[in-house]
């Protein structure tokens, strides 16, 4: 299992190289992601800085991976295609892409370049992961998975997919990614001008949410909102290794977490146990395991609507649309193939779930004329039945 992290500048790259020299991490176990302001969502490196860093790495010999993870509309995308064409791609072990357009560009133009495909957005099933994997074939280096996948799913995918899999083990959880600049309009005009090409950082809190202090960043790519708690799977590194996960990523870009790198490496190699580390206490935000243990984000769906007012197809006749107490109920016949006939027994299911059975002894139309039956789209009056309200569903008893 590889240890993946980011380097944002020469100092960080040199620090990583020094950890290799000191035997804290094996060179073969490490991978370093680098980006630029234009290609990467959060990187602040200019193109020249990246080129300098690549030059420096010729002596450090760390496995560098280029990140191209922005989503971009055609006109902006073309500029990044141009940027990519000017980079010394042979200096990178692989390229990480998220936009299918970036993926297609690499597949068609640079078929020799290994791809790490970022599937952090959706891609929560085996069929999809498998299809991406077979589409890329030998060019695929790794699939970077969503952090909404549970351990159970990671286990299955790692067992059944031939491609390497990567998960985030430590870092911010991205909640929202907009191309629009949403924070700078809140700044005064003179401050806005001075902010050009600089990130704006803030915290957002809503009274309508029990959570407070969502970290926010606005940069040239738009606005990003993160969860108030960061992801922390450091207690599960051994388990992830046992699941055959190919790589774990430690995203240390947003705080002073780079200082904890050595401790994380100790943990990664099992040189310390989770009881010995103090990263949680030192970290500026609370930490969670996210959906690692279980993802139940669909269980509340059944409460979003009242199933009892939904028509069930078997023996469905129609719906009560009006009730006049002690007088009558109006029924709209909605079934296209069933009629309501005198003498039939019907079952009424109210929105509250009460069920009543009744024999149809009279059917009256809206002109007060008695009828023998009622067919599709007809509105007819039935005798009042206590407890029945509008939206009650009516079914034939057969």
């Amino acid at each position, binding site marked *: 299992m590889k240890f993946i992290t980011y380097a944002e500048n020469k100092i960080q790259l040199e620090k990583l190289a020094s950890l290799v020299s000191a035997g804290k991490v094996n060179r073969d176990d490490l991978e370093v992601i680098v980006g630029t302001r234009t290609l990467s969502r959060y990187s602040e490196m200019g193109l020249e800085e990246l080129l300098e860093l690549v030059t420096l790495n010729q002596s450090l010999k760390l496995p560098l991976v280029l990140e191209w993870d922005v989503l971009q509309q055609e006109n902006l995308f073309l500029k990044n295609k141009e940027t990519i064409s000017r980079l010394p791609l042979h200096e990178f072990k692989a390229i990480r892409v998220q936009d299918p357009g970036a993926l297609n560009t690499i597949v068609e133009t640079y078929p020799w370049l290994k791809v790490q495909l970022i599937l952090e957005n959706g891609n929560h099933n085996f069929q999809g992961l498998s299809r991406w994997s077979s589409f890329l074939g030998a060019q695929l280096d790794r699939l970077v998975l969503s952090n909404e996948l549970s351990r159970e799913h990671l286990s299955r995918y790692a067992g059944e997919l031939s491609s390497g899999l990567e998960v985030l083990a430590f870092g911010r959880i991205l*909640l929202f990614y907009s191309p629009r600049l949403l924070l700078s309009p809140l700044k005064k005009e003179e401050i806005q001008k001075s902010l050009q090409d600089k990130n704006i950082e803030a915290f957002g809190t809503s009274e309508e949410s029990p959570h407070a202090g969502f970290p926010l960043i606005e940069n040239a790519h738009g606005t990003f909102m993160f969860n108030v708690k960061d992801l922390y799977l450091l207690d599960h590194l051994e388990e992830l290794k046992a699941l055959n996960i190919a790589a774990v990523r430690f995203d240390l870009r947003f705080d002073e977490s780079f200082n904890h790198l050595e401790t994380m490496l100790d943990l990664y190699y099992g040189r310390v146990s989770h009881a010995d580390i103090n990263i949680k206490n030192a970290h500026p935000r609370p930490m969670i395991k996210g959906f690692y243990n279980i993802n139940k984000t669909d269980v509340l769906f059944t409460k979003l609507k009242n199933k009892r007012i*939904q028509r069930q197809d078997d023996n469905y006749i129609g719906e009560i649309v009006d009730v006049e107490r002690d007088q009558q109920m109006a029924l709209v016949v909605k079934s296209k193939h069933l009629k309501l006939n005198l003498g039939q027994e019907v079952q009424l299911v109210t929105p509250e779930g009460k069920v009543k059975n009744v024999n149809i002894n009279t059917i009256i139309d*809206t002109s007060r004329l008695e009828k023998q039956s009622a067919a599709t789209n007809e509105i007819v009056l039935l005798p009042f039945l206590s407890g029945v309200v509008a939206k009650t569903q009516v079914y034939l008893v057969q």
Partner: protein
Amino acid sequence: MTNTIWTPELLSPAGSLEKLKVAVLYGADAVYLGGQKFGLRQASDNFTAEELKEGVEFAHERGSLVYVVLNSFLHDKDLEELPEFLALLSELKVDAVIVSDLGVITEIQKHSNLVIHLSTQASCLNVESAKLWKKMGVTRIVLGREVTIKEAKKIKEETGLEIEMFVHGSMCMAFSGNCVISNYTQGRDSNRGGCAHSCRFEYSIDFNQDEEAKKAFFMSSKDLEGIRMLTEFIEAGIDSLKVEGRNKSHYYAGTVSKVYAEALRYYKTHGNFLSDDLIRWEEELRKISHRDYTTGSLDEYADESSIYNQRESDEIEYTVSGVVLEVKENEHILMEVRSAFYPGDELEIMPFKGRIINHKIATIKTIAGIEIPKSKPGSVVKVPYMAGAERFNLIRKKAEVRV
């Protein structure tokens, strides 16, 4: 002028069977809808199998197409239930399915011959992305709302794919499919139909400086209105113009369908929109509940003017009084009441085609014929016959404050 000028398909939302009928009757060339699972609107009524059958028959009989959304990012256990639904969709001959997940695409291709449209949830934004999805077997791309019409034209020309763009309705501020706020804060997967619309909340923004935190609806977008961009859509050859809003009312589905259908019909006949009707169409779109309108990124990438920095309000100019359930010529009309009205009120019938018809309501009776002083929302009332009214017509009233 002959009716030979090409115009795009008008694609309207159908959150329920009744809304489907309203949208089709008011002029939608196609509707999109969801079954009980696999779509992104779990709180919407959605369609049972029987309703789906009836809806497809209703639409096809009137020359409209039906697309079914399967645009959730499905998990493994959801996929297990998909083949059965695909078999139903194939049997009913729905015209396409709208999908955002490659796993779902794969399952569809394995189990059916259904035509596949790529959902806007997949955030397809550029030519290369469209090319990749074409390789995966989609025939139409519903582009991300961030793409301009000019860019869309290029994507169409360079890929040969059908292109669908949003023309009207609410917008995610995030790249669609790239927001999981509800997942982490409400325990509801926004990309499986549980979006809690946290982007519409007011937030206090703390810049961590010496200034006070600022309150703002900073993540809330104005609504898209593309009526003035129709020429650009047509000239770019955009195949389908989509109206957002499966969760919205019958009135919304009817009004927006009617307005855009009328506008496109006008173009078909005249080859332009140089008509005083343009003002009328815009006025009609202002009579439905909406946030301030913007053209979003249709022309230029949306900037701060597209932020709707206001609390949601109910200040609307018109209210929908009801939907016509039954017309007995020269006798009576039965209306399902949506908002109260009174004897003496001036009501407006929205015919499926043509101008609004005004009628003063002389009396309101219960369905049994007893005269009542006002109509009660949720009930069915009998009003005197109004010439021009048809079943499923929407009837509205200028909103006013009653003391």
